[in-house]
């Protein structure tokens, strides 16, 4: 069977690189004695495929992976995995997916990044309104070609502000992967260009990964 799981990566694990995260998950699968399937060949490995890379420095509320394994109830899978995962990591839910379901890397095309911002009298509602009103939002690209200016605007689907007691939180819903990959650090620069200095940003993380279909956003567990 093929299983898709949603998991949380807590703040203590935000410095793990993508490969570290994959090793952590594979080791947990072995400790939990999950009946995973192996690839063929001289160097067999677990048929595990991780979703969009969680950048180093970010923690994540809803991350995803797909796993091929012998039949096992999803409930048992979660219990056994959560028993062996580090305290900062939890499988939140999982479900069986059809054999032909396209991989996470192919379908995830949007992500929500949260930025916790210190209160200092800045009116964040008008900042986001200003950004959303821009025709183009140019920042230095942080991707492969660092010298070019990149227009983030077509990739910014939405910006929202929530006010909490201790700080405000802006959530940016942006496009990822093809055709336009908006990186979290480019969003940080966009904020800086619009008056939200980096020093004010207390924390940032990824809230979720989504599949944008027309004007709707679905979680990878909804569209399988």
């Amino acid at each position: 069977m093929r299983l898709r799981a949603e998991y949380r990566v807590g703040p203590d694990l935000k410095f793990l690189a993508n490969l570290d995260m994959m090793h952590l998950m594979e080791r947990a699968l072995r400790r939990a004695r999950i009946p995973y399937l192996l690839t063929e060949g001289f160097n067999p490995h677990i048929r595990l495929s991780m979703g969009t890379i969680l950048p180093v420095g970010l923690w994540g509320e809803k991350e995803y992976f797909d796993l091929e394994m012998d039949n096992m109830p999803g409930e048992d899978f979660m219990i056994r995995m959560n028993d062996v995962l580090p305290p900062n990591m939890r499988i939140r839910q999982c479900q069986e997916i059809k054999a032909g379901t396209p991989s996470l890397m192919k379908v995830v095309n949007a992500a929500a990044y949260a930025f916790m911002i210190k209160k200092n009298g800045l009116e964040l509602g008008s900042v986001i309104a200003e950004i959303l009103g821009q025709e183009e939002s140019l920042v230095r690209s942080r991707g492969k070609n660092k010298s070019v200016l990149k227009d983030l605007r077509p990739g910014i689907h939405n910006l929202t502000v929530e006010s909490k007691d201790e700080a405000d939180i802006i959530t940016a819903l942006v496009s990822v992967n093809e055709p336009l990959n908006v990186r979290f650090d480019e969003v940080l620069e966009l904020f800086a260009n619009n008056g939200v200095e980096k020093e004010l940003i207390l924390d940032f993380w990824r809230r979720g990964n989504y599949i944008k279909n027309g004007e709707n956003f679905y979680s990878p567990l909804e569209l399988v």
Partner: protein
Amino acid sequence: MKERLFKDILPRVTKPARYVGGELNMIKKDWQQSQIKMVFAFPDVYEIGMSHIGSKILYGLVNEQSNHLIERTFAPWPDMESLMREEGIPLYSLESFAPLNSFDVVGFSLQYELSITNVLNMLDLADIPLWAQERQESDPLVIAGGPVVFNPEPFAGFFDAFLIGDGEELLVEFLDCLEQNRGLDRKARLLKAAAIEGVYIPAFYSVEYKQDKTILKMCPEYPGVSERVRKRLVKDLDNSYYPDKPIVPFMEIVHDRAVLEVMRGCQRACRFCHAGTVYRPVREKSVAVLKKQAEDQLQSTGYDEISLASLSTLDYSGVTPLVKDLVRTYGERGIGVSLPSLRVDAFSIDLANEVQKVRKTTLTLAPEAGTQRLRDVINKNISDEDLFQAVEAAFGSGWNSVKLYFMLGLPTETEADLHGIMELLARVKTIGNRLSRRPVEVRASLACFVPKAHTPFQWRPQNSIAQLEEKRRYLMSRKIKSVKLSFHDSQTSMLEGVMARGDRRLAEVIYKAWQRGCKFDGWSEYFKFEQWMASFDECHIDPAFYVERHRAYDEVFPWDFVDTGVRKSYLSDENEMASIGLSTPDCRQAGCLDCGICIDFGVDLDIKEEA
């Protein structure tokens, strides 16, 4: 501290996962409830330190089986170091994020001579005085163990105590002694500790020198401090502590796998080998114990590979049943077995082929020298025939690349021996091309021979940098197409040689080199040879005195006070045998060769399986 690191500091450094702790199976004991608080300091980066088995043993032992606690720290990479200095962050432990100077004991693991500048740098980052004599009552005791401390003298000025020999036999006893004497002052506590076998307190000894700068005598200055310090050793490895839940790092480390120590010691008696002398005698674990340890470790770590470690794993008497059992038990789950180094013979290749059923490992062989004559001199008891058979078996069973280890500058080496290396490589290449369908890859690694304390070659001069460079040029000029040669740096090897047979006068040189910015000397991108030379100059010490000089049999060595169990007369006999090109057999087969260890220490070879 932790919050500040996570928010402000770590986002700005490379590989932040080195500095966060919190890994699977980490042990964080209650600070208040624990007696002696020790931090285990590894003077290299995290991914190297976390690969070391000895550290895993001592970490588990102290935390699980004593009332003391032990936490970990590593040398920060220079980018992290400069941020720590800028931001005023002291070196801290990964468990409690506690500064090093809040511990009772800071214990360094000295695996490599040139890690000493990192020791000084780490003490400085922890705001602990570098010189032992400058430390106050409130400062931690700074101690060291590991293979390097079989000649601790070059580092004597920086340490309050050295623990010599197998640490699992000694460390807890040492910490207990400190706890029992908590009320006493620093010096009185160290005097108590000096009574423990294996503990060496350098400040309690004085050294006098002759006109020719060699040692006249080295004597204890206090009653109750013994003239010689005998190493500690584990007699029964089956019943000694071994961690069943080692820490699993988040980031990739050098040896990222479960490790079984199948035996300690080696009976091959290669005359250049330091570990082969100081870790005598051979003590094996039984196959049943190892199978249990493999199961426990794999269950608690989830690793996909298990490595069989020792000085010469193919000599472990139970290696065949063990490997077959592990492959049979874990292969289906995609868990592989690896053998770190192979003996040069066809048997090894057969066994390696078993291992390969699960995962391909690199084939590395160590003939060490290019001719039979020179291999007899160094007592590396393998023949050309063995080697070629091994290579035939390897290429014939599908291996496609071989790496061969050699040393340059071995005693009595001539041009014919260098020529022999190239001939041997050419022949290996020919065999490969004959047996393999694809072009084979042959690589040779050429290390510079460094004579080490406590070995039969401790009296021999080391090749100078100029000699080694000439040998390198000779080999490069005869390079064979598509055989890759890589050479160890001759300047680094010279400095290793100075430390390996150095004395306590070198501490000043080390201190000055550190002041001149030397650190990570084992990393070629940071090694500053000119700064080291300037430091020697400044101290009026000629490094050639330590490396290039021929030593007489009656010379008193700085390390003579360390009793490894192997007698000096045995070492000099072996050195004489080398001069006339005679080899010495393996004491497992040939019977006792009277090196001294078994008789003097009341131990015996501990071989588990019948041949």
